[in-house]
């Protein structure tokens, strides 16, 4: 539907201005990559491109830095958050699309989406003052005395429960991403043609059988895209975890230990970095985080577009 009516000089000018504005997105992305590579070149040069990623050192005194501990923290909190959030979110989506009576569908959907509107700093502060003490005094001791007794899994729950640890951070993170996953899952569920569902009901299927055999297979690509999108969001979440993770640079086997993620390290140490190598290493962390989340989000977008194309509205 492109149109070629460019005789008017003002029109030419206006189209050029809008084109420049549209290109700003590309300029920002290239700018971020270029600037972060330039700023981190000192650290890349000193520690090596791959050696930095696998080194567990993080010592501002001896100026020896590596990303392994923070990448570890980032991945553990993200994965654990997804483990809690994904089943819940899909349950919510099933409830909102199939189970809830009509007068409840709208309000519950909106309420869940309001969870997504609450700023992450509020989650962080609530986590520090309210959730962390509850975790330390009730939930974590309870976990230790039940699943903590089991062989192998028990290793995950060793140590003194302080509430400032990987587990609490993951729980907060999961509450934050539930709404994203749930609303995308709901939208994907809604793309299932009503006729197909009705035919299934017509031959006597129960609600759960319709969901399991009709809705889920129909929407799996979209739901998967939503899960990956939530993964991308969780990777880059800063303030919600900054309060309750403790920013401690170590790889631990227990979920009840303090740790650090890339975002938490940046938030806590960026303005305190007193040497060039230190700052450059932090820029390198930012670059790693940007590339990680950009790739994950691109994959999510790819699946969401495919789902949309296949069952497009």
């Amino acid at each position, binding site marked *: 539907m492109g149109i070629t009516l460019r005789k008017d000089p003002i029109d030419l000018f206006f189209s050029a201005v809008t084109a420049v*504005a549209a290109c700003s997105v590309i300029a920002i992305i290239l700018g971020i990559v270029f600037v972060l590579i330039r700023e981190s070149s000192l650290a890349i040069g000193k520690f090596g491109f791959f050696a930095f990623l696998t080194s567990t050192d993080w010592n501002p005194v001896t100026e020896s830095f590596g990303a392994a501990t923070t990448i570890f923290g980032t991945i553990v909190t993200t994965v654990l958050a997804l483990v809690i959030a994904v089943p819940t979110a899909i349950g919510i989506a099933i409830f909102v699309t*199939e189970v809830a009576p009509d007068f409840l569908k709208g309000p519950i959907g909106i309420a*869940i989406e309001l969870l997504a509107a609450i700023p992450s700093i509020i989650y962080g502060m609530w986590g520090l003052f309210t959730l962390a003490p509850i975790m330390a005094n009730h939930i974590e001791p309870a976990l230790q005395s039940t699943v903590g007794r089991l062989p192998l899994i028990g290793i995950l729950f060793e140590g003194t429960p302080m509430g400032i640890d990987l587990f609490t951070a993951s729980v907060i993170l999961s*509450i934050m991403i539930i709404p994203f996953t749930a609303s995308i899952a709901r939208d994907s569920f809604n793309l299932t043609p009503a006729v197909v569902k009705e035919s299934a009901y017509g031959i006597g299927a129960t609600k759960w059988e319709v969901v399991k055999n009709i809705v889920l297979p129909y929407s799996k690509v979209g739901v998967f895209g939503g899960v990956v999108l939530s993964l991308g969001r969780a990777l880059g979440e800063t303030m919600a975890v900054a309060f309750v993770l403790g920013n401690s640079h170590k790889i631990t086997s227990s979920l009840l230990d303090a740790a650090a993620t890339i975002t938490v390290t940046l938030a806590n140490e960026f303005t305190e970095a007193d040497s060039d190598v230190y700052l450059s290493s932090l820029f390198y962390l930012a670059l790693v985080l940007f590339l990680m989340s950009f790739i994950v989000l691109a994959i999510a977008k790819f699946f969401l577009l495919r789902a949309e194309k296949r069952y497009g509205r």
Partner: protein
Amino acid sequence: MTVEQRRKLENLTALVLSTLAAAFGLFWLIFILGDVLVHGIGALNADLFLSDPAPPGIEGGGLRNAFVGQIMITFFATLIGVPIGVLGGTFLAEYARGTRFARIISVLSDIMVSVPSIVIGTFIYALLVRPLGHFSGWAGSIALAVIMIPVVLRTTEDMLSLVPWTLREAAFALGAPYYKVIMKVVYRGAATGILTGVLLSIARVAGETAPLLFTSFNNNFFSWDMNGPVASLTVTVFQYAMGPFEEWHTQAWAASLLITLFILAITILGRAIIKWRYRS
């Protein structure tokens, strides 16, 4: 157990579980909002808005500097980000409609919407704070603007695409050049939608903390100077909540309550407008 009984039992279990999941989600919403409300409401007083922070550990004082700073930073971010976003969205939905270029930018914007905001903070730090040698309110505004651009661009594109193509054809038939069609017909048709997009993007950045940590930083004193460090509510909440003083914690709760109410109000307003305008 017969097959029918098993199917019914399976069905019941699944439905109960999904209801529990919804209750679980609502539980957190009520827990968090309720907690912020309970802690925050007791801490609200006139001093909070009218006076600047007292020295650490001393009773009293308020967050006037942070309120003013937050408004300044958000205002200028909107002033920078919204025009670029709206114009960019116009290009995608009008001049470049249906082209591969428009689709690529559209997809990249969708990705940029979810990119970690703290990375934007480090980017602007390297670009504007380090070369100039000091933190500044402008750097904070620009960091927020960078976050706003893709959001506004995408909503503008979507809203303009909702305006029926035949409306444009009617204007073309009268001999109007494309820019006039966009200004007089398309923008008018989509005005409510674009405004909602702008509202939601303000809600999005007003709660941002991470990109401000290294750009506008924080300032314990009242300041109109966008060339120097400027306090913001969100960064103040971070600093105060992590700090050792009870008084700071109370004020952080009050600030959290106000941020939350502001953002929820805008979000609900935005949704209400969309629902009212695009009911079909």
